[in-house]
């Protein structure tokens, strides 16, 4: 009797320890085994959520043997992460913020990589009556006038910056006009789309995230095709003069690969349901 109980007890504990041991061994297996060459890239939620990195990073690693660890945050946060020295490369989409980063000396140069565009997403019911139009500024004015619900990222991301710039172009001072219709959620792109879906609200999204977003519900594209919805991505290697520990060579290798014909082709090749999400433009001057 007692002997069996004791056996069971021992068996229970050994099972627990075996589980622990298993957990230890299985996790050494993944590609990220310690000791490999790696760089840390701080990037945006749009590149991550759209699945672009899942497509191009294995190609880069196969070519160079360098593993890329991506921490995806809003553009503002991603730049701050690099400012603190916690990333080797930043890959974001808010040119004004990027140029400030350059001016502060945290990077020596910025390379344009690719673009996609923003789209205004809205509910099928279209309370502001803007569906199918091409003028984003007129659409924003209509939303504000009718008090139709609008979800803002509110997280200092590239998309958030673009949205604020557009309100400015529309001549709407949010500090004055902000009412219950304007919902600032302080979260990533996917969360903003989920929220907009839940509240039948309009939201500005990058096209890549929208295409790969699966929980669309009643949301559709309301406004697209305006040149002011252009969304440029840039990449910068962190300046070793600011943070001596950054991996200059491997970081630069990643930057160089992204703007190389091979990297640009990899970006162009990424498609969801036959739709291309990002358009490489490393060679375009002034992008």
């Amino acid at each position, binding site marked *: 009797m*007692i002997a069996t*109980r*004791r056996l*069971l*007890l021992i068996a*229970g*504990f050994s*099972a*627990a320890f075996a*589980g*622990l041991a*298993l*957990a*230890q061994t*299985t*996790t050494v*297996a*993944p*590609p*990220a085994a310690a000791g490999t060459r790696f760089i*840390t890239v701080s990037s945006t*939620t749009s590149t*991550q*959520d759209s699945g672009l*990195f*899942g497509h191009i990073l294995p190609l880069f690693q196969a070519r160079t043997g360098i*593993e890329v*660890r*991506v*921490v*995806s945050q809003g553009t503002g946060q991603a730049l701050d992460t690099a400012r*603190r*020295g*916690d990333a080797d490369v930043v890959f974001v989409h808010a040119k004004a913020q990027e140029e400030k980063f350059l001016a502060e000396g945290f990077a020596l140069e910025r390379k344009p990589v690719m673009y996609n565009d923003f789209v205004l997403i809205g509910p099928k019911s279209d309370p502001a009556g803007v569906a199918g139009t091409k003028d984003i500024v007129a659409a924003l004015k209509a939303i504000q006038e009718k008090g139709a619900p609008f979800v803002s990222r509110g997280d200092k991301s590239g998309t958030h910056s673009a949205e604020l710039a557009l309100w400015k172009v529309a001549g709407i001072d949010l500090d004055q006009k902000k009412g219950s219709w304007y919902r600032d959620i302080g*979260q*990533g*792109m*996917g*969360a903003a*789309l*989920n929220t907009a879906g839940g509240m039948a609200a309009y939201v500005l999204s990058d096209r890549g995230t929208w295409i*790969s*977003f*699966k*929980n*669309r519900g009643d949301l559709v594209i309301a406004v697209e095709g305006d040149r002011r919805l252009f969304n440029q991505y840039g990449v910068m290697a962190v300046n070793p003069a600011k*943070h001596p*520990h950054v991996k200059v060579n491997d970081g630069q290798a990643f930057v160089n690969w992204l703007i190389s014909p091979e990297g640009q082709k990899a970006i162009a090749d990424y498609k969801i349901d036959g739709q291309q999400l990002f358009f490489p433009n490393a060679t375009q001057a002034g992008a």
Partner: protein
Amino acid sequence: MDFAAIFKAAFALVVGLDPGFLAIVGLSLRVTLTAVLIAGLIGLPLGAALALARFPGRSVVIVCLNALMGLPPVVAGLFVFLLLSRSGPLGPLGLLFTPTAMIAAQVILVLPIVIALTRQTVEDLWSEYRDHLRSVGLEGMRAIPTLLFDGRFALATALLAGFGRASAEVGAVLIVGGNIAGYTRTMTTTITLETSKGDLPLALGLGLVLIALTLAINAVAFGASRIGARYAG
């Protein structure tokens, strides 16, 4: 929301034994179990010492520990983040965005639970054993090994509580781990990510797997401690 799709996603994850998924589960287990192990090694003796020691300000320490059990994970994460960032005091170690950083954050989350519950358990046991242990000459800190051993089943529950808190939390590991695919992506951060990508069935499917895993670990521990408790009376 299609519930059939959710269960299908969960089922496909488990049956498919997708290596990426297994790596995520493995990392989650490794991080959390290591954190609980470390918290146990520190917290059990410390909690026992706190149960037996009498010093001015002891009740303040106890109240603080009890309050820390409710420490928001994000705050623990932020603390470790600032500590480990290259611009922080421990920056040169280069530990931010690594599993080690996640373990550190979870140790901070689990430690107060282990210490507080250990203190309670050991204090109760000490009030029962005091006369006998002092009679055989085990006073003060010398009584700790006996009390920890005899409280082993209640203490296993304390460790389980710690495991539950650590395995369920997402705020801290997201901040200090960075949710890097294949490196610091755990089950909870994957759930967050998939939710933000709008892939709700996959997110909830992962949630089901997490629940099942937690359930299995609890069942094993509960069974073992039931058998043990019966054995020890």
